[in-house]
């Protein structure tokens, strides 16, 4: 049978399927009758074909109907979904823009501080001013007509605080080196603290934007899940379940939001101390002369300093007040700018420091300030007060004591006095 040519084989195969022309069929039929080889091939193919045709059709083992999921049909997006998504995205973008702007603010502020040191317009809340340029001028100058003569005379000639300290250390020969270092650090800190960082975008805005992004993102998620659930119910596609991937993403989103919230909170509170550390070197002209206040432990001490106009500031340190303090310093602060919330600023400011810096006042000390004649019509002398920088806002110095101490005002001799209970920086103002 194997001697049959491929062409004959094809012919026989086609003949079985009725694919030969009438003439070819007749010719092949007669050849099959006469040629046993060809007949054997014919029989073989016919039987193979018949067996295959008899092969039972199997029934499909399962139903191959498509579910909507297999068909790639997705549930329709709810109509509000794009709105939520857009709101969330916009809020997030604005948030990061604002955050970035705020991050770059300290840089600008310290640059501004290098040219003009000031107590700033931020006043009680350095964050309260939005979109305000870094303060360089005293608004008080515009409002207070008969103002005190500025104390910025002959700054170049006066020694810097470092020079003073160096001088003192070499002079005393006492182990003041650590004190000097402490003082230096403390001075830096103390001076840095009142420096307002004016954030271009108020942190409340950032919190708001973050909240909006979260709420609209959650809204988008919820409306989508709800639509999907009702859709799959209607299409019998099985319940929508949250996969572990979804849960992971949600946890990640929560973590990011918590981190951002902390970041904004930190930015709004810790900025002044975290970001700006003005060194004495780049504060110009912050300090003219730091005076060490001489005192004898165990007895009441009294100190007074006169400024360029002969106006005297006096401080009484009771024996019980000084605690662990080993050195005290009085530093006039010049070229200051009034806090926003006051109506009048006498342009009189000074810093009281103690070494070591952990030293606290154990009892109230009393401060007397002479303010001279010039104040006259500019402010109500019966309302003059000392303000104290708490590290993030200006407070009435009387409030540093508990209970709040009482002012004693003597307009006839142009003097005001108040017991205070904290070291730090003080300003004479009319609230």
């Amino acid at each position: 049978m194997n001697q049959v040519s491929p062409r004959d084989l094809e012919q026989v195969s086609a003949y079985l399927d009725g694919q030969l022309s009438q003439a070819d069929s007749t010719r092949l039929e007669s050849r099959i009758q006469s040629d046993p080889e060809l007949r054997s091939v014919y029989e073989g193919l016919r039987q193979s074909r018949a067996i295959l045709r008899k092969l039972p059709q199997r029934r499909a083992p399962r139903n191959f109907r498509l579910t909507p999921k297999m068909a790639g049909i997705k549930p329709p997006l709810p109509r509000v979904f794009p709105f939520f998504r857009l709101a969330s995205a916009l809020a997030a973008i604005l948030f990061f823009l604002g955050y970035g702007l705020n991050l770059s603010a300290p840089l600008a502020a310290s640059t501004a501080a290098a040219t003009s040191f000031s107590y700033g317009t931020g006043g009680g809340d350095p964050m309260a001013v939005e979109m305000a340029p870094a303060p360089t001028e005293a608004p008080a100058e515009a409002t207070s007509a008969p103002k005190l003569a500025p104390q910025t005379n002959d700054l170049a000639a006066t020694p810097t605080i470092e020079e003073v300290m160096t001088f003192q250390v070499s002079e005393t020969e006492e182990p003041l080196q650590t004190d000097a270092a402490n003082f230096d650090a403390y001075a830096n800190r103390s001076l840095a603290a009142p420096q307002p960082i004016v954030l271009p975008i108020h942190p409340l805005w950032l919190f708001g934007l973050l909240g909006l992004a979260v709420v609209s993102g959650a809204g988008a998620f919820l409306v989508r899940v709800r639509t999907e659930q009702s859709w799959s119910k209607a299409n019998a596609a099985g319940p929508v379940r949250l996969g572990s991937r979804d849960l992971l993403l949600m946890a990640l989103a929560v973590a990011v939001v918590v981190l951002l919230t902390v970041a904004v909170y930190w930015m709004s509170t810790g900025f002044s101390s975290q970001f700006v550390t003005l060194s004495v070197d780049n504060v110009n002209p912050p300090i003219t002369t730091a005076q060490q206040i001489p005192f004898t432990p165990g007895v009441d001490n009294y100190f007074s300093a006169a400024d360029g106009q002969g106006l005297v500031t006096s401080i009484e340190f009771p024996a019980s007040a000084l605690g662990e303090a080993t050195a005290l310093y009085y530093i006039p602060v010049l070229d200051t700018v009034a806090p926003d919330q006051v109506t009048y600023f006498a342009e009189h400011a000074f810093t009281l420091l103690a070494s070591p810096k952990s030293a606290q006042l154990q009892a109230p000390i009393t401060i007397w300030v002479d303010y001279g004649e010039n104040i006259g019509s500019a402010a109500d002398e019966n309302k003059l007060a000392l303000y104290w920088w708490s590290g993030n806002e200006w407070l009435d110095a009387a409030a540093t004591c508990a209970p709040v101490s009482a002012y004693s005002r003597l307009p006839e001799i142009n003097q005001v006095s108040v017991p205070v209970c904290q070291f730090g920086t003080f300003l004479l103002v009319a609230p």
Partner: protein
Amino acid sequence: MDEAALILDAQRGDLDSFNRLVLAYQDTLYNTALRILGDEGLAADATQDTFISAFRNITAYRGGSFKGWLMRSVINACYDELRRQKRRPSVPLEPTNDEDEEMESPRWLADPSMSPEQKFEADELEHAIKHCLDALPPDFRTVVVLADIQGLDYTEVASAARVPLGTIKSRLARARMRLRQCLQGFKELLPSAFRLEGEPRSELIEENPL
């Protein structure tokens, strides 16, 4: 069932209409894939994949035989699977393993006209055929499955397998010849009517499909 209307609805995205077409053709596609691939699980996968891609591409169907269109698609799926197997050869399943028995067609089991012996014999015969089909090169197997098992005519086979008509003819002839030789090894399984010896010659002329 108005097939044309169902197709039109399916083209508009109506899954229910498409699923009615699935029910109509799933046995044909599954059997085709089963004979080409020789494995029930793979055949089921190929069938499912075919329907999925058919639904996704149904707008590409532009008239003609819908069955032929589906056939072409299922053969594509089978060839993809065969190519995959060629890249990652695995140990072939024995034709007579337990799983094979379990997957027996319910319709087949329920057939009341067959005695257990007949069923057993037919079952054995089916295994023999499967064995011989699997021994064919895939191109030959496809042609013989389409023409002799699914009963497609030459042009339908050529369209489904995307092979010229002449090639179909020669492949079919050679495939049948090889099958015949292979099946001779299972002579005792063949129904007596199909055995080669002792067959009356007169049948030859009567059965001529002219």
